[in-house]
């Protein structure tokens, strides 16, 4: 296995959490947890790789209680597997990360992977508990198994997005949603940038409440997904602002969003996530001199394909910018998160308290900033 040009001298595939803990107790070198390997390019360049720990054999859904709207799964379970289990009861997890249904739930949490479907947030908002094993082999948990809980510190928030640099996630408890009464997607293509900017501004300040609202460029397409009571979906479709809308439903709708996902994969050569405000997305797209982009209109976030690290540096003067995808070469020159000094200091202390010797994914996160 090769990550960031480094070859793992050993790849281990523990079949149980106990085995994983035992492996870690014995391991003295650098360790990289991996799942479905869809996001290995994310983060600052890895500095050393003695041992890769593939968690895909931790692949059991340990409990699913439809009546409680909770599901508990080991880290190696893929999103697709979770979706299939939930589908049987017309339930789902409102997430459609770019790396697709083949990604493991542990990997999605570790990289805070996201997509277009964001009715009420990202994966962090659906996690209710987590089990981890720390680099020294000690197992611990945070949160619990119920949908509402304030017992103890919520360390799952820290593990989410830490790219496996604090601890290895072994099991996640999630709350899930009942299926929408109906979903439908409205798509339109605008003649130019200005009219698209105008349309999305109308949508975001109007009465519609799409669960996805994407402005895709340079084609200037606007994609709206609605999920609600069938009549509320109808009402929203009837009240779309004036444009030539095409309505997608059923398989056509699913295929449509799959094509948006593959559109994301084609962004580049450097993909950045620029964090602004809903009212500023048109400015962000313009400022980033984006070649192609997907903007989360309701959230004020733009995923922008830019040409060079110069663009990243320039954007960072005015915005918080995360590098979503870039070549190893580029990632060597510009940090993934662009942390502010105070955050940097706190995260570094966090890293040190979990992994004092810096053996878990060295260089990947704050220690590579």
């Amino acid at each position: 296995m090769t990550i960031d040009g480094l070859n793992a001298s050993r790849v281990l595939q523990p079949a149980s959490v106990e085995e994983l803990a035992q492996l870690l107790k014995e391991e003295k070198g650098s360790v990289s947890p991996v799942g479905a390997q869809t996001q290995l390019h994310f983060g600052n360049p890895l500095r050393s790789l003695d041992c890769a720990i593939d968690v895909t054999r931790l692949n059991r859904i340990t409990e699913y209680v439809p009546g409680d709207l909770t599901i508990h799964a080991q880290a190696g379970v893929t999103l697709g597997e979770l979706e299939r289990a939930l589908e049987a009861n017309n339930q789902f997890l409102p997430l459609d990360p770019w790396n697709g249904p083949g990604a493991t739930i542990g990997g999605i949490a570790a990289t805070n992977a996201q997509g277009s479907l964001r009715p009420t947030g990202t994966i962090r908002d659906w996690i209710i508990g987590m089990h981890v094993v720390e680099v020294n082999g000690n197992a611990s948990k945070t949160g619990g198994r119920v949908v509402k809980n304030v017992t103890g510190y919520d360390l799952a928030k820290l593990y989410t997005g830490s790219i496996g640099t604090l601890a290895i996630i072994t099991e996640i408890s999630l709350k899930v949603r009942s299926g929408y009464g109906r979903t439908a997607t409205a798509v339109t293509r605008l003649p130019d940038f200005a009219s698209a900017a105008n349309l999305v501004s109308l949508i975001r300040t109007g009465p519609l409440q799409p669960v996805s609202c994407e402005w895709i460029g340079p084609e200037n397409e606007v994609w709206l997904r609605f999920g609600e009571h069938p009549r509320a979906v109808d009402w929203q479709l009837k009240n779309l602002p004036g444009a030539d809308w095409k309505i997608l439903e059923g398989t056509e709708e699913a295929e449509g969003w799959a094509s948006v996902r593959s559109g994301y994969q084609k962004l580049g050569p450097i993909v950045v996530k620029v964090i602004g405000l809903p009212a500023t997305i048109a400015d962000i797209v313009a400022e980033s001199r984006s070649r192609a982009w997907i903007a989360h209109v309701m959230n004020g976030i733009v995923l922008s394909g830019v040409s060079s690290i110069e663009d990243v540096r320039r954007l960072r003067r005015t915005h918080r910018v995360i590098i979503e995808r870039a070549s190893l070469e580029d990632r060597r020159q510009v940090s993934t998160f662009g942390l502010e000094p105070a955050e940097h200091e706190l995260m570094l202390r966090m890293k040190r308290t979990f992994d004092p010797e810096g053996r878990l994914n060295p260089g990947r996160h704050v220690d590579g900033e």
Partner: protein
Amino acid sequence: MQTEIIQQLTQIAGSASSVVCDETELLVYECDALTLFRNKPDVVVFAANTRQVAEIVKLANTHRIPYVPRGSGTGLSGGAMAIQGGIVIELQRMNRILSVDVENRIAVVQPGVVNLHISQAVAPYGLYYAPDPSSQSACSIGGNVAENAGGPHCLKYGMTANHILAVEAVLPSGEIVRLGNPAGETIGMDLLGSIVGSEGTFAIVTEITIRLLPRPQAVKTLIAAFHSVDDCSQTVSDVIAAGIVPAALEFVDDKTIRAVEASVYRAGYPLGAVAVALIEVDGFREGLEETADQIVEICRRNNAYEVRVAKDDDERAKLWMGRKGAFGAMGRISPDMLVMDAVIPRTKLPQVLAQIDRISQRYGLPVANVFHAGDGNLHPLILFDSRRADQVDRIFEMGEEILKVCVGVGGSLSGEHGIGCEKKEYMGMVFSDADMETMLRVRAVFNPGGLLNPDKIFPSRRSCTEIGKQTTTSTEEIGKRVDAVLRGAH
């Protein structure tokens, strides 16, 4: 407390009126709304701005004095209680709404702003702040952030954590930091998310950027009355199983109904009912009527003998007043009570309520149940008489037994009130030593010296019961406090 320190605090706060050290005046600050545990701080200082908070923290560090942030003092787990004495940093005067960005639906507020005041201030723009603890007319947004407060509508809209986008905070080092961003997007690790719900032990939050939501087009509120607890619980399960996402789904039992109906919070709950479900749905006008009808149908199928849909906003407000005043109304039926907070998987409701009933009979102490049924968040209220020593002796044991039942079915110790001082000795029921050790290490990242809000959340040698010598849980006192809360008279 040394006069030198009082002087320095006065200097920082700018006036003697911002510093309280008179023994009688300090009594107000010896507890929060969990009146069972008390300990007086040595001094209370009202901070006017972030800089003052930072300076007070630095002063406390220099002299190694423990300090505790405090908002409105409505907490129910003893979080704002100064276990080791020391300084209480009162944030109530930092109560300005700094900005409202209507277009981007966010607001920036100081920590002392009262929860409800935010929704009132942004109402003209058709917006509101979703988390609505029953104490919302008094509790501070800073206290909400610290406790990750919930409320009836968190069933659909999520807890405080889902609505906090960014904060400015004073770390225990005295350093002022900004975490998060107005888009609410995590960059790196979610430090902000870990501060929310840390019960005021990681940092003192001095400015908060919150998400505002557009008011739903329409709301429907209904109550359904049942002759049996099981029928009511089954209704809760069936509503969820039907794929409906209610805005709120509350359970009110017969004892609570009697108390509420005899009090100023009289809501018109059916007096003959063994249990009542208070259900609200909101969203687009289209489809809402059908959803409400579907719920009515589910209630009837489960033998509801009366189902009433609120005709107008007044009736709706009244139904909610009864629910929100429930804790305060208990004085009508009992001289003392212990408010509990625990969570169970909602499918276990009938089983757990039956077990609580058996425990109640065994101890000979009644339990009233009024709670957020939709997310399985129980609030058993143990009713007793503090003049009877035999009863007082048993309430803790009984409370512990109830918690064990909840944890035993896969539940947790607290859904919204926090662990604070109240439940720290019970943490071992849900967390192993290793779990807690990891949490304590994370606390040390933020709060290495441990002076910020010490002795909370985790078991310690000094238990809370040893501290509060003259304890009382009089429903009259709680009633007064709740009344003050609901009137927003803090």
